[in-house]
């Protein structure tokens, strides 16, 4: 059965959204998504909520206390948690509910209210009997970026190029947390080195924010008076955090998810057939790494697409026209933002950061130690067959 995104909504993302409660944050995104989809509450059959670790907010399974406020009371409610990929996984679970014929319209919502605590604290709780080798979030990924640079012989300024592109893109996105139209290659390269080789301006911020999408079946899509984004394929893959021989630079789980995704979507040449990609890039260097992992470039060549400007707006494959995770990072919602932004592009509702003529778009998320991957491909026309 076919499924489509009927509408999307997101909050204004900020370091601290002290003006709202958790319910208020979720509802800001949900209410926008319902309005964008042109549906009312009576038309929602089920709710799927995604969020990263409960320790961030200090609430065990917050969907329980939120059930009423997010409109789930009396309805089926699922809570997904697949680490950083959760926003994408949540949208994929909602899609399955529709594709299975169980529901006509499902509301998927993802949020993170990082300002309730400190994510660095929550993620660095040291269990007994382990070595206290604190490196922080960037410290986990920096060695893998170093390995990528060694392996691909990428020039040192590639990461800074991505940061400049994404921050400037974010300036076109009214919801983005960081909006820096005047950022330059020089200013990025002058910013503090945090986790060598990662500089301050090459890292994502810590944000409060939420995102919501309404997913409907074919009848719901055809009943919509607005343009919808047809979901052509979804994919999820997982591998362990660590194992002997793990490729942290080009993880097999990501590559296999992408291969399954393109095949299910009938895409044989992603670079040629995809018009825009929203890829989960929390540290700038992950753009070239994921371009390779996703099959947009051969292994070791992803940085060339960046260097030649092909991933900028106006390029062959604009990546993260919204500004991406580098501009807004409400962790649990970051993946769904990628999925929603992809849908917005093919619906023609991306505003100032619209890619002209975008018809097919990728939404991508990953989490854990580069081990959980979720993705979807959306397009402006219904898939021929399912």
């Amino acid at each position, binding site marked *: 059965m076919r499924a489509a995104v009927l509408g999307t909504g997101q909050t204004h993302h900020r370091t601290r959204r002290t003006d709202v409660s958790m319910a208020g944050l979720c509802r800001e995104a949900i209410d926008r998504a319902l309005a964008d989809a042109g549906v009312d509450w009576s038309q929602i059959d089920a709710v799927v909520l995604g969020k990263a670790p409960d320790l961030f907010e200090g609430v065990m399974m917050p969907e329980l206390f939120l059930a009423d406020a997010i409109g789930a009371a009396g309805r089926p409610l699922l809570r997904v948690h697949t680490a950083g990929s959760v926003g994408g996984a949540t949208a994929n679970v909602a899609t399955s509910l529709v594709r299975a014929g169980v529901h006509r319209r499902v509301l998927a919502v993802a949020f993170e209210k990082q300002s309730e605590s400190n994510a660095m604290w929550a993620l660095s709780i040291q269990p007994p009997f382990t070595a206290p080798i604190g*490196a922080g979030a960037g410290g986990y990924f920096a060695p893998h970026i*170093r390995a990528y640079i060694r392996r691909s012989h990428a020039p040192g300024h590639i990461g800074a190029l991505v940061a400049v592109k994404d921050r400037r893109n974010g300036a076109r996105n009214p919801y983005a947390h960081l909006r820096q139209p005047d950022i330059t290659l020089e200013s990025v390269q002058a910013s503090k080195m945090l*986790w060598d080789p990662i500089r301050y301006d090459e890292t994502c911020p810590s944000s409060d924010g939420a995102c919501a999408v309404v997913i409907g079946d074919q009848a719901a899509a055809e009943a919509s008076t607005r343009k919808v984004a047809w979901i052509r394929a979804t994919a999820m893959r997982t591998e362990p955090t660590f194992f002997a021989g793990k490729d942290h630079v080009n993880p097999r789980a990501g590559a296999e998810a992408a291969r399954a995704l393109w095949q299910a979507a009938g895409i044989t040449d992603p670079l040629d057939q995809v018009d825009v990609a929203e890829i989960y890039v929390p540290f700038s260097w992950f753009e070239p790494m994921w371009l390779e992992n996703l099959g947009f470039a051969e292994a070791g060549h992803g940085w060339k697409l960046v260097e030649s400007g092909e991933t900028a707006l106006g390029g062959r494959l604009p990546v993260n026209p919204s500004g991406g995770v580098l501009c807004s990072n409400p962790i649990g919602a970051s993946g769904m933002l990628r999925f929603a932004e992809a849908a917005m592009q093919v619906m023609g509702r991306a505003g100032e950061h619209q890619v002209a003529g975008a018809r097919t778009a990728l939404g991508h998320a990953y989490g854990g130690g580069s081990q959980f991957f979720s993705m979807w491909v959306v397009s402006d026309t219904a898939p021929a067959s399912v």
Partner: protein
Amino acid sequence: MLSAPLNIGFDYTRSLGPVLGRFMAGLRDRRVLGSRSADGRIHVPPLEYDPATHAPLTDLVEVASTGTVLSWTWTDHPLEGQPLDRPFGWALIRLDGADTAMLHAVDAGTRDRMQTGMRVHIRWSPERTGHIRDIECFEPGSAAPVPPSADTGEPVTIMTTPIRLSYTHTTSTDESRYLRALAEGRLLGQRCPVCHKVYVPPRVCPADGVPTEEEVPVRDHGTVTTFCVVNVPFPGQRLDPPYVVAQILLDGADIPIPHFVIGDAGQVRMGMRVAAVWRPPEDWTTTPENIVHFRPTGEPDAPYESFEEHL
């Protein structure tokens, strides 16, 4: 199997939004506010959204500080963080003027003073900050209400909630064996019977889902496969930045471990040979902290191809 305490704690800062913010500001001023839904019912504690129409609720009205117990139970041994540190009752209390009940503690002294339908009133905390605990607890009876303090007008936007939890963390038998070997200054690996890779510390082989069995000694020398220089301070750090955290492939192991490399820090590079620096033997216990850090050995670098598979 070895186990040890794991204590976590954080003072969460909850932003309240318009409805809960006004409710908490009311408590600070010794007033209880409820929200009125479209059907006319008054909800205390207030709901932020109408349960039927889903619209935001904006109409807040004051209710009494006296009420009726709808249900109750008794706690003989209060737990950490609960409102009273002596035996007390929990109750669902419907305040006069409200249509719903709130959960709070009743300082009744003894169990036999608790009953369904009993009248209770709020005992306000002397120190009020705009927090649910501005209500210290309830007391039996309908005492004369304490007049609200003059409205200070200061909005309440955030409430702080400390959360402290204590756990016992338990390791596996394989990990316990590894830790006991560490207490003797030995590094112990175990080989997966399927893929034959050596894991240190030993564990269920993540690639094959089977316990590793055969014990394999692993050397405390190894190769830096990749690394990062940490320049950023953050909570819980053991070293002052800058310092190097490297992935180190110990000789005889098939999976790297993360550790500090100290000495010649500016020269740390992929392929560098390093050796463990141990605490004095009299300080060894069942902890990986027996190895303080790694130091460069000065041997020639390992060729890239020798650790390429471990990046």
